[in-house]
């Protein structure tokens, strides 16, 4: 039988992975950049909450939005310092990807420096930060699960409203779909790219800041999670924010429930293979549905299913 606490954790984890995956997709859709630095941004999200809480007190949850904004600004900084030039030059996908790896290494180094500083100067136990102790329950449900779910739902709704109802949102969609058209319509594509880097970065930080309330953070946790985030984004089809939210959610959930199921079937030794699940999910998704969830022709699937049954 599956315990409720496991279900809560699984839901919170999957929602946060969904946020991070949406961030990857956001940046990829607008600038064709596969962002490796997402890994360290997630870790930074965690450490922002931890550091601010230790320095300024209060309840750690109040620093979640701060963390999101700051990681969003890291995204902006990445766009302004190098991504913009690479896009202007028309650099290939691989160069774009590699440059973000460079940024990831820098962010990782800085984060480790912060962790060293916190432990050496402030004597904090900074290499394993655990904020779960500050989590609380609302109506029997952990707040970490509630808030993550609420954010995913509101995000889905607000992205939809933003992209269809606001002027800038429509402009943004136009630019992403056709940059040349955007120029004709009088939209500044750079502003659009900048915004998506900000939102993408903020989503990474938000995911990280919320994740630290369900799992312990350490400086390289982002590198540990990045494959899961990529998996979510790719399963989602890379060209749809909703797809990535759904994909991230499914991959996160499959990691939890899949490993639960495997360990029930084959014993507790399977648990060490946990990380393999999102990887396999992604490879399978890519090889069989190269277009991701967003690209599957559901009508056809339904036909096949019906055909098999008859």
């Amino acid at each position, binding site marked *: 039988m599956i315990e409720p606490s496991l279900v809560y954790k699984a839901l919170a984890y999957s929602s946060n992975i969904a946020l991070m995956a949406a961030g990857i997709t956001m940046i990829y859709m607008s600038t064709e950049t596969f962002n490796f630095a997402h890994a360290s941004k997630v870790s930074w999200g965690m450490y922002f909450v931890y550091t601010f809480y230790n320095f300024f007190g209060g309840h750690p949850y109040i620093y979640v939005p701060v963390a999101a904004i700051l990681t969003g600004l890291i995204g902006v900084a990445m766009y302004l310092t190098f991504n913009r030039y690479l896009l202007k030059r028309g*650099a290939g996908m691989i160069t774009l990807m590699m440059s973000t790896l*460079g940024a*990831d*290494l820098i962010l990782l180094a800085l984060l480790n420096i912060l962790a060293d500083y916190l432990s050496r100067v402030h004597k904090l136990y900074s290499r394993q930060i655990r904020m779960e102790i500050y989590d609380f329950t609302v109506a029997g449900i952990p707040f970490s699960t509630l808030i993550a779910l609420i954010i995913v739902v509101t995000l889905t709704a607000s992205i939809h409203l933003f992209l269809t109802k606001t002027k800038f949102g429509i402009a943004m969609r136009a630019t992403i779909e056709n940059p040349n058209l955007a120029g004709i319509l009088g939209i500044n594509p750079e502003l659009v790219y900048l915004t998506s880097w900000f939102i993408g970065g903020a989503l990474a930080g938000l995911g990280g800041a919320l994740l630290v309330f369900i799992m312990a953070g350490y400086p390289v946790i982002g590198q540990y999670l990045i494959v899961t985030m990529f998996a979510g984004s790719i399963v989602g089809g890379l060209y749809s924010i909703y797809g990535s939210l759904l994909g991230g959610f499914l991959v996160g959930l499959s990691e939890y429930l899949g490993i639960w199921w495997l360990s029930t079937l084959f014993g507790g030794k399977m648990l060490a293979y946990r990380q393999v699940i999102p990887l396999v999910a*992604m490879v399978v998704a890519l090889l069989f549905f190269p277009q991701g969830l967003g690209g599957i022709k559901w009508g056809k699937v339904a036909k096949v299913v019906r055909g098999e049954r008859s």
Partner: protein
Amino acid sequence: MIELGQLYILIRYILIDFAISMIVTLSLNFELGIAAIAQFGRVLAVEIGAYVAGGLTGRILAYTIPELRQYSGAEYSNHLINFKLVDTINRTLLEHNALLSIGILILTLALAAIIGGIVGWLTSYPAIRLKEAYLGITLLAFGDVVMLIAQNYDPIVGATQGVSVPDPFRWARPYSFEAALIIALILAGLTFIFFEMLVRSPFGRALKAMRDDEVAAKVYGKDIVKLRTYALIIGSAFAAMAGAYYTMYIGSCKAFTYTRLTWTFWPWAFMMLGGTGNNVGIAVGVLIFVIVRTIIINYKTYLEPFVPFDPIWLEPMFVGVVIILLSVFRPQGLIPEKPAFTIKKRRIRSIIEIMRKQAS
């Protein structure tokens, strides 16, 4: 005053690091720089090679010794047996037999190349179907999955405990390190020459044509599927050899030593620094990185008292900054690719001269 002995040890270290990294980076360059395959899973072939050296050679040797034959199956990689078993193999079989040792070395490299090639061939399945970034992420996932399995399933290479690797350099004691170094340099040199020959052949030219313009290459008779597959097989075979060699020289094989950072991203950085598509550039890039890394590790002790953090973090920072600066300001690398002719340029000129005279 410079202590010559220490400098010698340091240079020895730099050179062997250089040789192994160069083989890996050359193979990466062949796949990415020449054949334009988004190889973000270089570690896959490297680790396969390492597991061949760690898991297969020793078993073969154990099988040949009647008293040890019972351990040549799954038990071989049990660490309680393995460490002593390999020690026995080293002492009784390899220590006094230079010829056998070299034979084992060559056999291991050959096996690694063959199995690495097979792995390359298997990865061609997604490589033909997926585009750039998708392919990159898929190959990255393959590398991680194989590492995770080897790390948890002990009949391969003893899972987390790892295995000892038969030492093919022991006969040269006390100069075994020198032996390992010289062979590594020879191997790196041969790899360099081999890839240069490929690049300067109609085959290499066809790969470059595919890289430059896939549709035109198809129309001009290039079978893209085959070319990609060949490039993956050749590249992976060499990367596997490098992995096997590294494992033999370290003397121990542990699944989790083969991380994507060390064996995929680092070679990428070397390649970007030196110049994608250019083998000479690769050699320069690897050399600079290896030297700079060594300097950072060595000077860090001088910096330690002045900063409230471990100066070791300057190393990833340095690599990160280099990658970004290169991709913005010098995407072609320090030594950009130059046209590589199949026939020596002088010979082409003389043929041309004759033709021009005939025409006029």
